[in-house]
């Protein structure tokens, strides 16, 4: 019985993450358009795109291509159920942050496997860039999460959220401001928004990993992006913004973070990959280390 309940809850969480993620991207497109002084697409445009993609025919380069893209989507879905989302917390005793981060890695591995089995060098270059950038942003992010670990004396997101209960002044955003800024910059890299969008540069490497993806494959890619967006902003909310008393507040907080990212994305050009990494290892890492020192000492 409990298994069935958890299963349904898990499916619900997955559906929530997909829809919220798609909605976020849709709203994001609208907001970006407004910054560009355009009208912009309807905010449900992403659902339409997804539907179109899933119903469009496509080509595949073999089983690994299929499996990789499914893995990219499914592994993130599997990770989402461990994320405490407001009052929805399906596995409260099993929400280790590092576990979630490593589980997300599987999605990237799957994605990478899929696209590079297409045999297109553009895709592989894109993946190589993405992985290089990962090395860039993971280091400051690691500094931040280990600071939070030490600060909260727990590694479980549930407990980190619980430790921040009791109002704005208890949020880690206030208590660990440098960490928050560092994590925010790292988040920009995680989301692949400008100035860290070198992995999917359309004009240089024909949209990188997506070069061979069409139809439902691109649809899966889109889903992965949406869930990833949900998960990454969700982790940030749990880490710094005190989670949420209910899921809608949680989502609003997520959106705030995404909104920040969008603003940056809309106006910035793109880093060269090595400059992106060295930026990550300079500014955010310094901030993260300052934060870590403050926590340790």
């Amino acid at each position, binding site marked *: 019985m409990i298994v069935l309940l958890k299963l349904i809850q898990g*499916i619900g969480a997955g559906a929530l993450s997909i829809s919220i993620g798609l909605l976020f991207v849709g709203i994001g497109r609208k907001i970006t358009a407004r910054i560009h002084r355009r009208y912009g697409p309807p905010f449900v445009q992403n659902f339409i795109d997804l539907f179109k993609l899933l119903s469009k025919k496509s080509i595949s380069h073999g089983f690994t291509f299929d499996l990789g893209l*499914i893995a990219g989507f*499914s592994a993130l879905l599997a990770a989402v159920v461990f994320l405490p989302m407001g009052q929805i917390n399906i596995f409260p005793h099993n929400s280790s942050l590092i576990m979630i981060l490593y589980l997300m890695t599987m999605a990237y591995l799957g994605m990478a496997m899929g696209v590079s089995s297409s045999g297109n060098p553009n895709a592989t270059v894109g993946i190589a860039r993405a992985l290089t950038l990962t*090395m860039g942003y993971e280091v400051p992010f690691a500094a931040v999460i280990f600071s939070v670990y030490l600060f909260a004396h727990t*590694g479980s997101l549930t407990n980190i959220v619980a430790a921040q209960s009791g109002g704005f002044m208890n949020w880690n955003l206030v208590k660990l401001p440098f960490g928050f800024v560092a994590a925010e910059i790292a988040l920009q890299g995680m989301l692949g928004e400008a100035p860290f969008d070198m992995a999917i540069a359309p004009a240089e490497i024909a949209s990188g990993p997506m070069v061979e993806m069409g139809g*439902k494959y691109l649809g899966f890619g889109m889903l992965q992006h949406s869930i990833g967006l949900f998960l990454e902003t969700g982790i940030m909310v749990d880490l710094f913004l005190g989670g949420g008393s209910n899921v809608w507040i949680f989502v609003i907080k997520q959106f705030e973070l995404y909104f920040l990212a969008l603003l940056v994305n809309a106006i910035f050009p793109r880093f060269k990959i090595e400059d992106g990494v060295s930026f990550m290892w300079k500014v955010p890492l310094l901030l993260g280390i300052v934060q870590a020192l403050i926590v340790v000492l």
Partner: protein
Amino acid sequence: MNTNLIWLVAMPLIGSAVTAVVVRYKFLDRLITFLTFATTLFVLFLAHVGQSYSWTLKFLGTTLNLTLNVSHLSIFMLYISIAFGTVLAFYSLIDNSRMKGFLLLLVLAANNWIFMSNDMIGFFFAWELMGWASVVSVLGGREKEKSRHAALYYAMMSVAGSYSMLFGIFILWRLTGTFSISANIAYLSSIIGGHPWWVLGIVSLFFMTFMIKSGIFPFHTWVPLAYAYSPDAFTPFLSAAMSKYGVYGMLLFLPLGLLEKGFPTAFGVPWTNYIFLWFGVITAVVGTVLSIFQDDVKKLFAYSSLSNLGYVVAAIALFTPVGITAGIYHAFNHLLFEGALFITLLAVISRSGTSKLSEMGGLWKKMPITFFTFFVGIASAAGIPPFNGFGSKWLVYQAMIKQHLIFATILLFLASTGAFMYLFKAFHSIFLGQLSHDYERVKEVPIVGQIVEAFLMIAMIFFGVQPGYILKPIGAIVKSMGLKPLPVMANGYVAGMFSNVYMPLIGWSLVVSFIFGFILFYVSAEHKNVSQTDNYTAGQIPEDWGLTPETYQFSWNFYQPVEKLFVPFFRIKIDGFFRGIGDWTKATGSAIKEIFVGNAQMYAFFAIVGLIIFVIAGWMA
């Protein structure tokens, strides 16, 4: 007196003697090797903790007791190494490399002896035996001249290490008059309060050996050479099992009780351990960074192997319950996934005939079982749950954070991210991407190889989902070291300091979401399979362009941008330091050689001068 223990050493020695006779008949050689491994494994089933066997040796003017002793740690190490060796020996039935069965069996005998020995004579004997047997094994690599250099380099490091340990052994003997390891460690532990520098000096003599054997910075330079140029069938054992000897040795010498003796601490660990820990961390980072830029796949995984040993060392150096648990657990996981990876590499190299990443590509269709084993292997090595590498890495972080070692943890995390980079590079360059025309006829390895690979794949998943089967014996080891073991929960749990992870849950979560993913995939519009060359080429038609799969495969200079980032670090050449010592010795040798001028008068003159000096010395005395 448990005579079954002596068979653990004797059985491989006998097998080795037999295989040495039939060394010319390759299959027979391999078959006997495998049977010996299997028998040894069977003999091991009869052994259990607390057994001991001793016999005497009339040597060094006294009657010495040589003792074999089964502790929790040793039986754990024995099980994992012999079991892996058996699997490898089974694979080697179909292998064509120039590995000699009798050398592998000699290493096995030494392996068992090292893990069981409670006296330093036996330990040293076995250590040296293992040393030369593996050095000679390395000689049989594919690239003759390179494996010659590699073997020589490895031998030099190994011999230097052995002599350092020999020195340490006898110093301990001088102090205590016994060769018993446990007695000596108890002695060291008892005098550490009064003479810390003495103890540190002696222990560092031993640790130098162990660090060399495990390839810990700054002694990591031999590892890539020896791994890359050893016979492909021997490399898995070299990486998976033999790197553990150093770890085992360190674990023997770590319980000195520094904290109880009021040793100065840094971050809650004795400062010696703190320094040692940084060696581990640096190893992890250096291994990772260098691995990213390798083109030879065995070199790449050699660096990967030593990077993982950096994790192990960093964790055990803490000498806290969670640290030791994490270290041993990671050592086990390293054995499993690194062994599996090297076995798949063996399969790939035997079929493709090259170990250059830039010459491979697209092999997954040709070698599906190998491909999936490799996939699970890199997922484990990258620490992706629910495969087996995750739990230990996660515990390592916990252990480090527990001691507020935030910088070390960040660097380890960097190593882990970098690990993902090089693992994917190898994965892509071997299995994904375009299939070269040269490999159109490549076949999957024979059925024996497939069985081995499938077995390892299942093992990696099983021990990932059910870590309890490993964590329980590790708990016993931790307890036997006088530490409080981590709470043992149900089989699927990894219990950490800050939170727990229930691995089967992750597994189920993945299964459900994969089912969901597949359903979504198959209800969506259909797809058609196209050939690998039907690719987006910006409108260029491949034939017009003269495009071949090889030219359309991206695997050369894979992480070129990253290389720019690390340019300043490449100027530091540890390897150059050792080679410098070698060159200096050689130059001194050339100079000293000039004493022997080849002239009788000069020799006579030397003799007379020597005499005169003596006479003067006698006068002065």
